[in-house]
C-alpha cells in the first residue's frame, strides 16, 4: 500500500509541475526564416550565422536582461508558400504573448502576409526584402505598420547611384544612363522612383533593357547600350553569383569600353569578383552592409566592428566551414553569415529595448523598434540610424578593384570592393 501511495503522490506532483512550469515563467519566442535551400542553391550560411549569433546572444550576450530567448529557425526554401505556412504554424502553436517577433527574407512572402501580419496578428516582422513597393514612399510605416526592412529600398539605392552620377559627371550635356534589369518583380522594383528622380535631376535614361536570367549571351543587350551611347550602365535585380552576371560584365567590358558599370546591393560583393573576375574591375555599386569578404579572404578589411565580429565568430564556431570557403560545404560568402548574425543582434536589441520600457509584448517590441536609434554594433562605421522609416536607411558606395594574379600557374582573381563614400543615411539626404 505504501508503494502505491508513493506512486500516486509522484504522479500528482509531476502533473502539477507540468502545468505550472510553463505558466510560471513567460517565455520570449521568436521565429526566423531564411532561404537556405531551393532554387537559389544551398545557402546554409544564413542559418549558421543566425545560430552562432543567437547562441552568443543567449550566453555571452546576456539574453534579454538575463532572460533567454527561445528562438526558432526555419528554412523557407525560397518559397513564399513555405514561409507563410511556417508562420501560420508558429502563430497557431505559440501564444501571442510569447511569440514576439518574426523575421523573413523574401519579398514574395511579404505580399500575401500583409493582412495576416499587419491586421490580424500585429506582430513585428523584420525582413531581408529591400522592396521599394513595400518599404518605399508608396508603402512604408503608415500602410504596413508592422513590416520592417533591414536595408534601404532599391528605389533609394538607385537614386543614390543616380545622385553619384550627377555629382561625378564631368562631360557636357546631361549624363546618359542605361538601365539593365531582370524581368522579375525584383528587377522592376524601384525603377519608377529612379525614372522620376532622373527626370528631376536632368539625367537622361537612354536605354532600359530587360536582360533575362537564362541569357547565354549579352551581345544584343550590350550593342543596344552602345548604340544608345550610354555612359553609365546600372545593372539591377540580379544575384552576383549567377552566370548571367558574369556574362554581362564580360561582354560589357569589351563592347562598352568607356561606360561605367554600376549596380545595386546584390551585385556588389564577393561573388561577382569570383565569377566575373577582372571584368568586374572598376564597377561602382551601392550596398546596405559593409563589405566583408575580399578575395582572398585574408585580405578582408577588418576596420569595421561588425565585419571583424563576423569573422571572429566564423573562425571560432565554424572553423572548418570558414577554411573550406568556396569548396563544397564551406562559407562561400561571409555576407550571408554576417546577415544571419545581424538578425540575431537586432532581435536581442529590440527585445531589450522593449523590456527596458517594461512592455515585453508585440506592441512593446513595435514601439521599441519605432523608437530605435542604434549604431548596430558599429556596422555603419559608428554612425547611428533611426528606424522610424521602418528601413535601416544606411548605404555606402563601393568601387571594385580586381586584378588577375598568377597563383600556382593559374590566373586567379584578387580584389575587393572598397568604399568610395562615407555611410549615407538616406533619411537625411537632400534629394
Amino acid at each position, binding site marked *: 500500500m505504501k508503494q502505491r501511495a508513493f506512486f500516486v503522490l509522484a504522479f500528482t506532483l509531476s502533473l502539477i509541475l507540468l502545468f505550472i512550469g510553463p505558466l510560471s515563467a513567460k517565455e520570449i519566442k521568436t521565429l526566423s526564416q531564411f532561404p537556405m535551400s531551393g532554387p537559389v542553391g544551398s545557402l546554409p550560411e544564413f542559418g549558421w550565422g543566425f545560430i552562432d549569433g543567437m547562441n552568443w546572444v543567449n550566453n555571452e550576450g546576456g539574453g534579454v536582461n538575463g532572460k533567454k530567448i527561445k528562438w526558432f529557425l526555419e528554412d523557407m526554401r525560397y518559397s513564399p508558400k513555405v514561409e507563410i505556412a511556417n508562420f501560420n504554424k508558429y502563430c497557431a502553436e505559440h501564444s501571442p504573448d510569447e511569440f514576439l517577433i518574426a523575421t523573413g527574407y523574401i519579398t514574395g512572402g511579404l505580399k500575401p502576409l500583409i493582412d495576416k501580419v499587419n491586421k490580424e496578428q500585429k506582430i513585428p516582422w523584420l525582413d531581408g526584402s529591400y522592396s521599394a513597393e513595400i518599404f518605399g514612399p508608396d508603402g512604408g510605416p503608415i500602410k504596413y505598420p508592422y513590416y520592417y526592412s533591414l536595408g534601404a529600398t532599391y528605389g533609394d539605392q538607385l537614386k543614390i547611384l543616380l545622385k553619384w552620377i550627377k555629382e561625378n559627371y564631368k562631360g557636357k550635356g546631361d549624363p546618359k544612363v542605361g538601365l539593365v534589369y531582370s524581368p522579375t518583380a525584383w528587377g522592376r522594383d524601384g525603377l519608377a522612383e529612379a525614372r522620376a528622380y532622373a527626370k528631376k535631376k536632368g539625367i537622361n535614361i537612354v536605354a532600359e533593357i530587360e536582360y533575362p536570367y*537564362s541569357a*547565354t549571351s549579352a551581345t*544584343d543587350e550590350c550593342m543596344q547600350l552602345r*548604340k544608345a551611347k550610354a555612359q553609365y550602365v546600372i545593372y539591377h535585380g540580379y544575384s552576383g553569383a549567377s552566370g548571367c552576371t558574369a556574362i554581362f560584365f564580360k561582354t560589357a567590358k569589351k*563592347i562598352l569600353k568607356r561606360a561605367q558599370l554600376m549596380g545595386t546591393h546584390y551585385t556588389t560583393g564577393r561573388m561577382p569578383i569570383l*565569377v*566575373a573576375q577582372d571584368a568586374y574591375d572598376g564597377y561602382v555599386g551601392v550596398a546596405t552592409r559593409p563589405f566583408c569578404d575580399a578575395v582572398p579572404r585574408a585580405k578582408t578589411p577588418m576596420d569595421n566592428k561588425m565585419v571583424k565580429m563576423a569573422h571572429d565568430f566564423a573562425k571560432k564556431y565554424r572553423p572548418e566551414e570558414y577554411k573550406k570557403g568556396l569548396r*563544397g560545404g564551406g562559407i562561400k560568402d561571409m555576407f550571408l553569415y554576417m546577415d544571419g548574425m545581424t538578425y540575431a543582434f537586432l532581435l536581442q536589441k529590440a527585445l531589450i529595448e522593449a523590456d527596458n520600457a517594461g512592455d515585453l509584448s508585440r506592441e512593446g517590441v513595435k514601439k521599441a523598434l519605432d523608437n530605435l536609434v542604434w549604431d548596430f554594433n558599429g556596422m555603419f562605421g559608428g554612425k547611428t540610424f533611426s528606424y522610424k522609416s521602418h528601413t535601416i536607411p544606411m548605404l555606402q558606395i563601393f568601387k571594385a578593384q580586381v586584378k588577375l594574379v598568377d597563383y*600556382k600557374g593559374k590566373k586567379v582573381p584578387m580584389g575587393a570592393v572598397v568604399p568610395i563614400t562615407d555611410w549615407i543615411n538616406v533619411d537625411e539626404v537632400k534629394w
Partner: protein
Amino acid sequence: MVDFIQALGSGILVGLVYALLGLSIVIIYRASEAFNFAIGEFLVIGSFLFYIFFFDLGLPLLIALPLGLVAAGLVGALVERLTIKPLLGRSPLSMTIITLGLGFFLRACVQLIFGSHSYSFFLELPDITQEYGDLLFLSDPIWAGMLSLCTFGLIIFLLFRTRWGLAIRATSENQAKAMAFGIDARFILLIVWAISAACIAIAGIMISNFGALSSMSAIVGLRAIPVVLIGGMDSIGGALIGGIIVGVCESLAGAYIEPLGLIGFKDVAPYLLLLIVLLIRPYGLFGEVRIERV
C-alpha cells in the same frame, strides 16, 4: 543596315553552336529513334569535366580539351550502357522517357557535386575581335562559331567518309539488319552516345566561355529542340540549317522586336517559326523523304 548585318552575324555565330547541339540530338535520334531530353545536363556535365581539367588541374588547353571531351564521351557511354542498352529493341518512346528522368537525376548530381553557384569560365583564347566601324563581332562568339563548325565538319567526315561512319549509318537505319551483317549494333550505339556527349560538351564549353558555367546553363540545351524540329529530326544538314535559322531568328527578334516592348520574345521567336515550318512541312525543312515500297 548595320544593325541588320550585326544581328545576322551574331545570330549565325550563335546558331552554329545550336547546330552542333542539334547534330548531337539528330545522331542519337537516327541511331535509336530516341530524343535525348537530358541534353542540357549533358552540356553542364561536359563543361564541368572540362572545367576540372583546365581550371582545377591547370592543364594546357590543347591537353585539357581532348581529355575533357573524352571524359564527356565516357559519361555518355556510361549513361547509354546503364539506361539505354537494357531497352534495346523496345519502343523508342521508353528510351525518350528514360532520358527525361535521367535529366532530373543528372541535374541533382551536378548540384550535389558542384553546387548551384556559377563558376567563372574564361578561356584565354587569342583575341580575334572583328570591328568595322559600328560593326562589332566579339572574339568569343567567333571562336564558338568556328569551333562548332569545325566539329560539325569532323562529324560529317566521320559519318560519310569512314568505315565506322558507314557502320553507324547502317545501324541507324536498322539495328537487326546491322547485327545480321556482323555490325555490333550495341557497340555502335555506345559510340554514337559517346560522340553525341562529346559534341554537346564542345557546345557547352563554347557557351560557358561567354561568361560563366553553372547548373543553370542546362537551359541552353533546350534550344536544340526548335533546331532539330525545324531542320528535321533525322537530317544532319537540317541541324546545321536549323541551328543557323534559330540563331538568326533569336538575334533578329532581340534586335528588332524586343525594343518594341515585347520582352522575352527572343526565346519565343524560334518556337513561333517552328510552328510555321511544321504547318508547311511536318517532317521539318530537311526531314528525310521516307522510302516507301508498295
